[in-house]
């Protein structure tokens, strides 16, 4: 069977499962819609959280980011940053927010900081972070479709929007939870199966995590030593020691991703769905187990795919691939624009080098490392079809989680909480469905019309969450003295300085030519690149919040009692909207 047909069958089959689940898990109440009825088992919630969390960026782009853009060791910022946040979440936020027992993140901020303005500011911060994030997912859906099913990017996006519309609008959090569990299974199989094959081929070890540290099959040379050797021969920095800019930058980058992870609302609300406080703690552990399966495989995929790619282009030292003899997959990916060659010296061979003057691999997109990996390793067609389904599962599951966070902020925080407090539950449920439909249409629109900033937005979302929502939540739980004025000033200050820093180096709204300082290390504060700046924004948030709290009236007694109340598990009851 040809690859095209096979891909349609595999993708079609997974989509049928998602729609089937949507019909089975319809939401009947606002509680179903916002927190899946509050009765999700912690292991199931861990699996759903893992799918919610691992986006197109984790699945399609991360291995390539590590292998190519960040040149090996430098890519560790993603591995540590996107996992270490769960430790913070499990200890500093999730159990207390679960104890508090409401539906949304802005609702907690509004109650703890006894102010509708604080709630409104939190809604704005939530929408800014989630929208920047969801655009990247919609793009991922469009790209995955267009590459694997050879339909237009636009058509792919419409199909993706329709599927998400179906299960998210019908089922709310309940539908999303069960689809995310199915999506996790699809995406983890799709990620690990090719990795196991490649690890076996290169090292004879079926576990990629061990394969990366093993010797190459039939030799006594370690894979990583060989990789270091071939990349340095081509003029690149040594793979295993290649620092991303500076130690300080790596530190800041990792920290920003960690606290950004802990502060992203679509992840936090997943912990409102478990029955108990102690489930919220263990569920974070399960989530990280399921995430770690992919995140410990990714560096192996990165190293092995890089080695495979180099050995395809340079089969023996100094002997480069003849252009006429390049394999079929090479030509296929050239058509998509992800690979491009240019025979600069006209010798009919493809020179690969770190030196741009002689390098003839003029384009190697990061995404190639995962997308073309099965073809480079000559794996059977069904594995390639599975990778397509996995990429779509990763993008759809994250998009649905983000859309729910956005729509519940609109229907529950803005409508029910502020504009029309007397709305009936049925009307609120309908409003949340309408808000979801609008959120999907809006995200689709932004996916179709990238306003220049679609590409760099995922990393920005972390910086924004790190500098606005995370500090507000942490101070809300760990301090009784932070006042509403302090919290509001902190959130506004933190998110503003982060946005300002990014725009100053990357252009206002990422529009080229509007940056007023060049995006080079010399212009950066302490050598910290814009994507790594969220932790500095968080520090600014904390400092402003405490400073303002010192000069404003202390929080009222009932708020201090609320803080006492959320610190102790007993009497959590079920999540409610009242």
């Amino acid at each position, binding site marked *: 069977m040809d690859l095209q047909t096979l891909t349609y069958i595999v993708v079609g089959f997974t989509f049928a499962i998602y729609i089937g689940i949507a019909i089975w898990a319809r939401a009947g109440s606002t509680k179903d819609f916002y927190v899946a009825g509050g009765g999700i088992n912690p292991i199931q919630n861990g699996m759903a959280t893992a799918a919610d969390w691992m986006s197109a960026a984790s699945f399609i782009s991360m291995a390539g980011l590590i292998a190519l853009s960040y040149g090996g060791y430098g890519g560790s910022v993603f591995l540590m940053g996107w*996992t270490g946040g769960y*430790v913070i979440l*499990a200890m500093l936020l999730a159990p207390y927010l679960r104890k508090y027992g409401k539906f949304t993140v802005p609702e907690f901020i509004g109650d703890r900081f006894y102010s509708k303005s604080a709630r409104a500011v939190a809604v704005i911060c939530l929408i800014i972070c989630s929208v920047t994030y969801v655009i990247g997912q919609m793009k991922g859906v469009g790209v995955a479709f267009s590459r694997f099913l050879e339909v237009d990017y636009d058509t792919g996006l419409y199909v993706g929007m329709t599927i998400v519309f179906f299960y998210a609008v019908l089922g709310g959090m309940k539908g999303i939870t069960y689809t995310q569990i199915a999506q996790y299974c699809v995406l983890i199989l799709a990620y690990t199966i090719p990795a196991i094959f490649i690890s076996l081929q290169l090292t004879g070890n079926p576990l990629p995590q061990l394969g990366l540290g093993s010797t190459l099959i039939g030799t006594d040379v*370690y894979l990583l030593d060989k990789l270091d050797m071939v990349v340095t021969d081509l003029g690149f920095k040594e793979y295993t020691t290649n620092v991303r800019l500076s130690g300080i930058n790596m530190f800041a980058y990792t920290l920003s991703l960690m606290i950004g992870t802990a502060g992203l609302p679509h992840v936090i609300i997943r912990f409102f769905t478990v029955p108990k406080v102690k489930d919220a703690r263990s569920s974070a552990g399960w989530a990280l187990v399921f995430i770690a399966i992919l995140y410990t495989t990714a560096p192996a995929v990165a190293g092995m795919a890089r080695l495979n790619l180099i050995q395809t282009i340079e089969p023996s030292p100094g002997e480069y691939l003849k252009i006429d003899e390049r394999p079929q997959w090479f030509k296929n990916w050239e058509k998509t624009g992800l690979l491009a060659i240019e025979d600069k010296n006209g010798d009919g061979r493809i020179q690969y080098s770190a030196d741009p003057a002689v390098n003839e691999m003029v384009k190697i997109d990061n995404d190639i490392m995962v997308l073309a990996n099965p073809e480079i390793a000559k794996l059977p067609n069904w594995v390639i079809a599975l990778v397509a389904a996995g990429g779509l599962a990763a993008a759809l599951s994250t998009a649905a989680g983000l859309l729910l966070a956005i729509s519940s902020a609109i229907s529950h925080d803005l409508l029910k909480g502020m504009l029309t407090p007397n709305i009936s539950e049925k009307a609120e449920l309908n409003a949340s469905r309408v808000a979801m439909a609008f959120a999907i249409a809006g995200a689709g629109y932004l996916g179709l019309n990238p306003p220049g900033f679609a590409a760099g937005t995922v990393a920005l979302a972390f910086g924004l969450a790190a500098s606005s929502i995370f500090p507000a939540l942490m101070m809300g739980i760990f301090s009784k003295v932070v006042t509403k004025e302090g919290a509001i000033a902190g959130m506004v200050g933190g998110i503003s300085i982060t946005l300002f820093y990014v725009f100053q180096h990357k252009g206002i709204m990422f529009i080229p030519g509007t940056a007023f300082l060049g995006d080079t290390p010399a212009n950066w504060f302490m050598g910290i690149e814009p994507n790594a700046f969220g932790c500095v924004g968080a520090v600014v948030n904390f400092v402003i919040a405490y400073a303002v709290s010192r000069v404003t009236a202390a929080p009222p007694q009932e708020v201090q009692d609320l803080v006492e109340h959320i*610190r*102790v598990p*007993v009497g*959590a009851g079920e999540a409610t909207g009242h």
Partner: protein
Amino acid sequence: MSPLNDEQAKEYWRRNVSLMVKLLVIWFVVSYGFGIILFDVLNQIQIGGYKLGFWFAQQGSIYVFVGLIFYYAKKMAALDREFGVEEEE
């Protein structure tokens, strides 16, 4: 309302925070410490094909993170029982 008096509530919170601080120190050491600050030093040690600093940055820290969360969950469940503040089944 909480079944704890002020004194007990303070003690419960103090023990929670002290457990948390200990675990966050480990969290910091395995990632920022071993994976970034002491990276060059640890790379002098090689385990199989992995330089140790590189291993912590791309593998080891993640395994430790998983262990930390389950350890915290287990210890806190015990603390909840000790203070009689666990949730009824």
